[in-house]
């Protein structure tokens, strides 16, 4: 427990009209600095990234030319986790005292267009219609439901929870609650996933301010402590997005490795987690990631979801701010949005979407192409 979060800032996610991704990134930084009660000139290390929104370090022209070292990170869906890890290392090593971590992004409407060449795939894979990330999510949950004998109705239940939580979160993109029936009636896009079971690429910005744990209470009475951060890439036999073939010798997802690493580093057991934000690019991903992170056993999701355990008033609330389903997925900002939400929940200041039970430990988890995962454990 050597690094603490003393400031968190997030601006509304969605589709930017009348503002720009750079303006929102600067606004998120100012919110985080204001939350920590410090100035930009107090920051002596900055790190952040964006896939499509520009270089994070170029924002110094709006934030102020303080000469601060500012590192750009781009690591897919783990851009936020990787930036956070870099800042934690800088503070732990003594190289920095107060660090800023920033994630922001803005993507065009519709499914992500995959460049087969950049992903090491042949042209044929794209021209014949196989370079579509949604297909992976469909194929993975289809196999998972079969292997673990889970009913497809869990997908509607997960999506309905996401939109309910999003309706209570003023920063969410989708603010309209939807019932399981609304979701069941939406168009089937990639069986078994329907329109409201898949998140959309979108716009968003989030920033955090970190300092050494022993100095945290100088800034605020309720710091949140980073107990562990881990980023892992895939190992042999895992089932990843954009894979023309899979091994018949199965291995596990990088999520399993990243989650196991944070629990071991922190000396915390999965059973101690009081709430979690897990990657829900689609409703099926939330179901799978509950087990891959160790929060439940494979096959146990039916009981967990049917019992209401994953709702805001349950024993293990999941994706309490509406997750990617209600917030969309700006790649660079998504992971830090999860951390921002866990910080609010641990402080007890999440407002209408505050969980009912007092959480002591919060997990966040991202997963993305080409097979990497980042996990973070926070405590009060």
């Amino acid at each position, binding site marked *: 427990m050597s690094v603490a979060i003393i400031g968190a800032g997030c601006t509304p996610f969605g589709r930017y009209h009348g503002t720009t991704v750079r303006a929102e990134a600067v606004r998120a930084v100012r919110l985080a600095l204001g939350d920590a009660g410090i100035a930009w000139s107090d920051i002596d290390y900055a790190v952040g990234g964006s896939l499509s929104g520009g270089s994070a370090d170029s924002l110094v022209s709006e934030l102020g030319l303080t000469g601060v070292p500012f590192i750009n990170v781009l690591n897919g869906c783990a851009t936020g986790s990787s930036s956070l890890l870099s800042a934690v290392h800088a503070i732990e090593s003594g190289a920095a005292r107060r660090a800023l971590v920033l994630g922001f992004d803005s993507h065009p409407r*519709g499914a992500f267009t995959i460049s087969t060449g950049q992903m090491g795939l042949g042209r*044929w894979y794209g021209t014949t219609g196989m370079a579509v990330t949604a297909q992976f999510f469909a194929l993975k949950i289809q196999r998972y439901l079969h292997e673990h004998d889970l009913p497809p109705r869990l997908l509607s239940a997960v999506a309905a929870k996401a939109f309910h939580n999003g309706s209570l979160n003023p920063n969410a993109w989708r603010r309209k609650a939807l019932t399981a029936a609304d979701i069941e009636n939406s168009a089937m896009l990639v069986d078994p996933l329907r329109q409201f079971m898949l998140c959309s690429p979108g716009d968003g910005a989030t920033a955090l301010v970190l300092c050494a744990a022993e100095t945290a209470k100088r800034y605020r009475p309720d710091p949140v402590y980073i107990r562990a951060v881990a980023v892992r890439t895939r190992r042999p036999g895992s089932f990843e997005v954009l894979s023309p073939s899979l091994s018949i010798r199965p291995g596990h997802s990088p999520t399993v490795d990243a989650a196991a690493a944070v629990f071991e580093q922190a000396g915390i057991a999965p059973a101690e987690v009081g709430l979690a934000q897990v990657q829900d690019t689609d409703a099926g991903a939330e179901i799978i990631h509950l087990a891959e992170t160790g929060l439940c056993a494979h096959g146990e999701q039916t009981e967990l979801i049917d019992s209401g355990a994953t709702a805001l008033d349950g024993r293990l609330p999941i994706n309490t701010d509406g997750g990617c389903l209600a917030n969309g997925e700006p790649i660079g900002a998504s992971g830090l949005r999860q951390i921002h939400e866990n910080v609010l929940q641990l402080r007890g200041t999440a407002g209408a979407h505050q969980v009912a039970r007092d959480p002591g430990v919060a997990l966040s988890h991202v997963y993305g192409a080409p097979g990497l995962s980042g996990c973070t454990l926070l405590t009060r």
Partner: protein
Amino acid sequence: MDNPVDPTLMDLADGRLRLRGGRCAACDEIHFPVGTACPRCGGDDIRVEPLADEGVLWSWTVQRFPPPSPPYVPSAAEFTPFGLGYVELPGQVIVESLLTECDPARLHIGMPMRLVEFSVPTESGETAVTFAFTPWEGHAS
């Protein structure tokens, strides 16, 4: 016969289509299509070998919205839904493939599948041969 969509994917020999797999000399892992290194151990001694043309359906979906074009060749106006899945070739590898079937009622995990030629449009406006798997009704799993 049309040209293959990519000559490294398959061989059309004696009128019979076979996918070209790569076997790692160091760890025996098979991958498809043949790459320059083994995805399990990184070994670069890769031997090409033909893959089985029969297998079982490992997972499936139906692509019901037009994939972004490009890279997908048919335009949104020409798009029709298509089946897609992974087929396990026992003892070898699990390959991702177009399916000739896109009716969910006729697709289930574990069903026997057989490799067939499949015609697809190309960027130059012609057609080419790629591979697909088709349900193999005559064969009990």
